[in-house]
């Protein structure tokens, strides 16, 4: 029996109907369809945090919210800092097989201080731009080596509107890229890879939880 125009996702009764109610065919067919769950290994960051106490971040006395380390013992304005004020500095930011995948489940890799679009992540989230607004990432790939080529892929099915895309690897120069085409950097560098999206008109990126595939994927080569 030849099966044509078969509809995936049909109920079993619908499938049976499409098979002309042939009970011998149905079990065989069902065993050929299964669903898989994938485990995607994501970005790995590793680095150090300076806890030497020889900087302004040292664990110790804090002057009413301003972390300092020059207060005298018993000073009236001094309160105890329970933790170091400085953050870890990540030496390496690595992606399996060189692929960074952004699902926008959280803002771990979004430069929220620089991005001026409206970012509302979560179960029904979206990222909304007016004309000229930007979404900029933190460093998403840093191997210690010079990065010279990268390819940006975008899941168009969740984006409405037009975006101009840029990549940077030297810490200062943004270079315009074409989605899906390998870009060779004029300004290669080892500072780390970032992306920037600039809205050309009104743009919305649907980031809600039902999005299973990554929305932005960047391959370093």
């Amino acid at each position, binding site marked *: 029996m030849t099966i044509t125009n078969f509809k995936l996702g049909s109920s079993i009764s619908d499938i049976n109907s499409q098979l002309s109610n042939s009970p011998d065919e149905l079990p065989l067919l069902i065993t050929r369809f299964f669903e898989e769950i994938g*485990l995607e290994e994501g970005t790995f960051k590793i680095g150090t945090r300076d806890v030497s106490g020889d900087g302004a971040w040292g664990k110790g006395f804090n002057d009413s919210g301003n972390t300092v380390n020059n207060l005298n013992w018993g000073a009236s304005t001094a309160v105890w800092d329970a933790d170091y004020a400085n953050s870890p500095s*990540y*030496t390496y930011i690595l992606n399996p097989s060189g692929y960074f995948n952004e699902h926008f489940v*959280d803002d771990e890799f979004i430069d929220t201080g620089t991005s001026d679009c409206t970012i509302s992540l979560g179960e029904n989230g979206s990222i909304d731009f007016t004309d000229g607004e930007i979404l900029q990432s933190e460093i998403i790939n840093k191997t*210690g080596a010079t990065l010279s080529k990268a390819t940006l892929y975008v899941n168009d099915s969740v984006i409405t509107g037009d975006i101009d895309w840029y990549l940077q690897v030297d810490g200062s120069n943004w270079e315009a890229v074409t989605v899906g085409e390998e870009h060779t950097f004029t300004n290669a560098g080892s500072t780390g890879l970032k992306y920037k999206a600039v809205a050309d008109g009104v743009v919305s990126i649907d980031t809600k939880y039902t999005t299973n595939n990554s929305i932005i994927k960047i391959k370093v080569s």
Partner: protein
Amino acid sequence: MLLNEGLMRVRELLQNDISTGQLGTSTDAVSQAQTGLQTAVSASDQSVTVSGTDKLITVEYELDSVTATGNTFTEFIVENSSDETFNRILFTGIAHSGDTEVHAKLRFFIRPV
């Protein structure tokens, strides 16, 4: 089809199983048949903080400034409480001195294929 609720359950099972992270000093290439670090630094075996949101799992590892110092770490793994290893990652080298903590952060994502 696989529902989001089912995927979340898989995420929770994995999230609850991840227990520790550990560093090592080998530069041997990663292969799928490996079962752990190639040159483990046993003192670096530390509990990790694991959090989950939607289909995302985030694992955070921290090694204080007085433990396993003097090493230059080049490999990292995440394990469960039975020392079964989820993954192994190689990097060029992190020197660990008494002036620094080592911090690592790793993400996993669950999704239908």
